[in-house]
């Protein structure tokens, strides 16, 4: 049985502000050295999927640079491997992807030509570790047409921003309410689909030409009676960083928790990412580091607490960084203070400058000079 992986990575996030002004949300840096898409991509590769298409649209430069030939994920292959699927111009005209269903429809060739029997559709914005093998087995066991991965969300998630599903005791989904004002239940669809490839092709050929654009809203939801759609309950750690700046921030901070770290970094295989060839981080004599993630190439001379520090960061003497995310190549100069902030790549906080955020996390754009 062969599975084609598709990763939806084209979306623009309306909620991440300046952080996504120059990159797709799937290319958001996370946990010191990764990009958001590394998790879904590694999950697929670790589950034995060797052909993966990444659908890009919004500002893909940084994402493309990151993915390269796919060699870090062992996807630089003669058969299969990594396919970047961008909107394109053809004699019939050029069309941006109008939605998820449309995006896959426009790349039907990849589906038609491949020898795969199933398609796994994931999103580049999700942070989780899963063995998709469990989902495949569930799918067969249930005799499902479509399996959607769902999760019972606790109060730390804003249920009005998710698709809430109603399932019977067998796991069959009878109703889905997209972003309901008054959510009925707490089981949300995580945006991950497992589906028979020929069924998906049929559905897309049937509905996209007549106006369907979104895979969930326009293709799956109207056909819940005709199709056997099952929900596979995932009970591990899962976050969608695209939902808000706070969600992105909180997800990063969660990695300081040992349990989350063990699950995300070591369970169900490793997380692969683009290598940067940097030396180990250095802690000088005046460095004080507490409860923080510190990446390669970083030199710490100041104080760091409860923070995620990316690669090649310099935190100079007398500088204080607390409860913050400091991205690659940023320099915090002597005596500067950074509390509750997100500093994007290659920013500089000048000597003695103070950045004090509180519940409202302060966000600074790439190459900001403060």
């Amino acid at each position: 049985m062969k599975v084609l992986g598709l990763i939806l990575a084209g979306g623009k996030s309306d909620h991440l502000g300046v952080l996504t002004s120059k990159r797709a949300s799937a290319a958001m840096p996370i946990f010191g050295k990764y990009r958001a898409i590394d998790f879904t991509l590694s999950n697929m590769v670790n589950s034995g999927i060797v052909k993966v298409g990444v659908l890009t649209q919004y500002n893909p430069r940084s994402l493309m640079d990151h993915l390269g030939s796919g060699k870090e994920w062992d996807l630089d292959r003669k058969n299969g491997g990594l396919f970047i699927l961008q909107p394109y111009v053809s004699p019939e005209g050029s069309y941006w992807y109008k939605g998820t269903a449309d995006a896959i429809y426009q790349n039907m060739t990849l589906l038609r030509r491949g020898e795969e029997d199933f398609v796994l559709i994931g999103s580049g914005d999700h942070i989780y570790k899963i063995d998709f093998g469990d989902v495949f087995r569930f799918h067969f066991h249930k005799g499902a047409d479509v399996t959607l991965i769902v999760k019972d969300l606790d109060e730390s998630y804003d249920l009005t921003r998710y698709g809430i599903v109603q399932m019977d005791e067998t796991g069959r989904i009878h109703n889905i309410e997209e972003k309901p004002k008054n959510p009925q239940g707490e089981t949300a669809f995580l945006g991950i689909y497992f589906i028979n490839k020929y069924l998906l092709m049929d559905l897309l050929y049937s509905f996209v030409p007549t106006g369907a654009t979104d895979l969930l809203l326009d293709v799956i939801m109207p056909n819940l009676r005709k199709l056997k759609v099952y929900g596979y309950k995932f009970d591990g750690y899962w976050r969608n960083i695209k939902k808000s700046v706070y969600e992105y921030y909180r997800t990063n901070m969660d990695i300081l928790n040992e349990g989350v770290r063990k699950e995300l970094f070591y369970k169900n295989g490793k997380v692969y990412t683009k290598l940067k060839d940097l030396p180990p981080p250095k802690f000088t004599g005046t460095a004080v580091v507490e409860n923080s993630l510190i990446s390669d190439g970083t030199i710490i001379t100041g104080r760091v607490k409860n923070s995620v520090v990316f690669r090649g960061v310099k935190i100079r003497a007398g500088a204080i960084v607390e409860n913050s995310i400091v991205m690659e190549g940023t320099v915090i100069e002597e005596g500067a203070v950074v509390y509750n902030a997100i500093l994007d790549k290659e920013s500089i906080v000048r000597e003695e400058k103070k950045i004090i955020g509180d519940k409202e996390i302060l966000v600074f754009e790439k190459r900001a000079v403060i």
Partner: protein
Amino acid sequence: MFHQNVVALILAGGQGTRLGVLTERIAKPAVPFGGKFRIIDFTMSNCVNSGIYTIGVLTQYRPHILSKHIGIGKPWDLDRKDGGVVILPPYQGSKESDWYKGTANAVYQNIEFVDMYDPEYVVILSGDHVYAMDYNDILDYHISKDADGTIACMEVPLEEARRFGIMITDIDNEIVEFQEKPKEPKGNLASLGIYVFNWKFLKKILIEDEKDPNSSHDFGKDIIPKIIYNDLGKLYAFRFEGYWKDVGTIKSYWESNLELTRPLPPLNLYDPNWKFYTQTEEMPPAFVAKSAIVENSLVSEGSEIEGQVFDSVIFQGVKVERGVVIKNSVIMTKTVIKEGSKIENAVIAENVVIGKGAVIGEGEYKESLLDPRIYNSEITVIGMNARIPDEAVLGKNVVIGHDVKEKDFEKLNIESGEFVLSNRE
């Protein structure tokens, strides 16, 4: 522009006996260094940073980890259509087959490999040294002097000169005398084991030397003196002024690692224009817990630090549990230091487990009962995969062999100078 007509040969067959248990299982070029590298990475990175993309690595002693590490050379961008990196082990021929008898013989046995690329110059390097050097400088110098061979050299303290090949030069830097590891050195200009030769010239000399029954087929002992004293060609000395180190002893290995933790070490790992590449396992960033103190140290990816680390180099994936205190030590990949252990002045190899409450580096220095020629400093060395029992107390200059298990310890108190080796050998 880079020189296009150069082949580099890296001699990586040596055991490095003076590193004791550290090289019992692996060749010296494969010994881990600086938190995530292996010693040969420095020479390989120097090559590619200098634009030399055709490299032969001559292996002999325990080559498995070294060969696996180099692979097809991907991390160094040496996976190429033309050239790239080739591992050259000794091989069997129809007429003769032999181990590499000496450094010169190793090159002699690979004349065909070099001829395949028909280079103007060959650079002969050692996989045992840690340094940053642009080989274009010595090549330019070699060409400008119209030399047949050029040897990189450095001034060393006179008392150390006995460990090196010593060169006496004339005013133009042409070498007029050469002493290999002299008892009474006539100067302090030491050879760094980095040679540039015109390939045609060297090939002729190697073929002649091979026929000489009195020769040990070594560059320092035979080839260089022959060229000088039989007037076979012009050899020049190229003075190198950067950082160069032959981490040949346990003490110098330990020192040069710890040097990297100082504020501005002479070897800059952080230079974006002269990166050192390596093959490493993919690991998440290092985590430093609330209970941790880390000062003057390198802590590599995948490590989790809950205890205290001072003036030490911690490699990838090391666990330092609560209450642990580590001082002046080198801890290699995936070693686990359990709760409450105290470690001082130690070199601990890969995949070691130090039991709860163990103490390492206690007491006064005593001469080694195992081999005082190798183990002659305060440093305690623990070989790879060793298990140190809970509450064990190890003195200074103690040696724990690789694969030692808890049951190999007949007592928990190992005094300074004592050793424990695996019983299964």
